[in-house]
């Protein structure tokens, strides 16, 4: 099936002190959920801010919805960005956010917002509650409620899972599944996350970032064919180490991720092959590209 892209970013560059975001090309597939994975400070938030148009000082071009319009202002109504921290003014109340949102967005549905607030148990039914008095988890829920009450075509979520409890993470996945299903291929989701295993069941495409660069990307099912999880005995460890993409061993045996094309080189060893989880792949890719030194 031919893949359309919801966002095509080209030559994105953004410099900070001691850090540079440099994305020569990045296409985000339309109709799918894309996960942005990487270390702290890898540039995920910066990248999402740029994509959502709340950060404008960067070089490069971004094309949305495969359309000619190049200005983020024209698509903001259809983008739904949600971020952590001070997303709303801290003095706003739950009810006030409803009023503000109605002014800010044409498609904001107040009934849906109220329903979501109730469903997610934000503020315990008290709409006067101020944002500053909510816990981090509830703040994120409120952010999600506001953004999901609109008719958007692409959600851009910065670390939506981190402040949520396991039950809410499950609910978040469910809501994202619903969002994608209702869109029937017209809606897409991009989210950054450290909680890869919690989000794996709603990750279709994956971008792994390190030091401002995208070091690996692809559909999860393709990545699971590209990388293979290898487990073997300690006696083969030394020989395997040079072939494996990532390696960890101890006195009982070794384990590592191997590129599928190199598996043949392990012939003769007493090994077991498994399909790795997205989490295992991500950690392997991140380890291979990190500046941090592991002993």
């Amino acid at each position, binding site marked *: 099936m031919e893949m359309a892209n919801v966002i095509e970013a080209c030559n994105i560059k953004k410099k900070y002190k001691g850090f540079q975001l440099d994305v020569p090309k990045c296409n985000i597939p339309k109709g799918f959920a894309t996960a942005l994975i990487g270390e702290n400070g890898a540039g995920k938030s910066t990248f999402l801010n740029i994509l959502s148009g709340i*950060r404008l000082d960067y070089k490069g071009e971004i094309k949305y919805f495969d359309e000619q319009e190049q200005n983020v202002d024209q698509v903001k109504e259809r983008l739904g960005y949600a971020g952590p921290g001070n997303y709303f003014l801290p003095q706003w109340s739950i009810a006030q956010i409803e009023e503000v949102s109605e002014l800010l967005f044409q498609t904001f549905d107040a009934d849906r917002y109220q329903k979501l607030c109730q469903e997610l148990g934000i503020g315990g039914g008290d709409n006067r509650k101020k944002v500053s008095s909510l816990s981090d988890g509830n703040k994120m829920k409120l952010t999600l409620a506001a953004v999901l009450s609109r008719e958007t075509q692409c959600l851009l979520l910065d670390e939506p899972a981190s402040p949520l409890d396991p039950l809410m993470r499950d609910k978040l996945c469910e809501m994202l599944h619903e969002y994608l299903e209702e869109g029937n291929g017209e809606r897409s989701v991009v989210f950054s996350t450290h909680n890869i295993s919690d989000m794996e069941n709603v990750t279709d495409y994956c971008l792994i970032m390190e030091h401002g660069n995208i070091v690996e990307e692809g559909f999860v099912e393709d990545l699971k064919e590209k990388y293979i999880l290898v487990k073997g005995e300690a006696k083969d460890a030394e020989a395997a180490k040079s072939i494996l993409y990532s390696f960890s061993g101890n006195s009982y045996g070794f384990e590592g991720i191997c590129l599928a094309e190199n598996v043949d080189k392990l012939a003769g060893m007493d090994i077991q092959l498994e399909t790795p989880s997205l989490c295992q792949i991500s950690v392997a890719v991140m380890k291979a590209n990190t500046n941090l030194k592991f002993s």
Partner: protein
Amino acid sequence: MRRMIRSYLALTPFLYRIVLFVFIPIAIIAMQQLFPMEDIVLCTFFITLIMVFAEILMDYWLFGGISTRDGAKLEYLKTSNYGIKLMKNALTINMVRQLIESSVMTIINIILFLVLNQGESLRGKDVLVSTNLLLLEYVVVVMLLTVARFFDGWQVNMFISYAGVILMLGGCYLVGKYVIIMFVLLVVLALLLSALSINIALKRVRECYYDKAA
């Protein structure tokens, strides 16, 4: 216009409205009646003095720190095309509201004064000086708030409101002495400062889309 007022109302919490529109006016007028003053101008001066204090403190509740570099606070507004416009509308309406509120209180006060003190009549100079005081209050508040919004912390607003009171005390002497000149000067200043204040605030909000580095 309706949209502008809605923008302002959307940004004002319920409690804020109660304090600003009910509590403060009633408190001021009640105080005036408890400690009756002999002079209309003195009454107006009292009102404007208190309002300078109140406005600057109350503003922290609404626009506290919007001109600081920490633009992350405004992320939600930034995700909408209407965000900056909403801010502009709210700031504009807030300034108009401020002038109207003080004026209305002054007028009520003058009426009460005339009713309670039979025999007194309203002199032209009283009206002119009262108007000057109202304009002075407006100018002082707008000017100081533009500065106060660069800092995030209610203590800053508290400190600046003291400065406002000092400015009022100094200003009232001039206002009474050079009535006509000050009137013209204050009208011009009020118009200029209003435009400047909104522009500075909006410029800072727009700058949130960019980083200072790079």
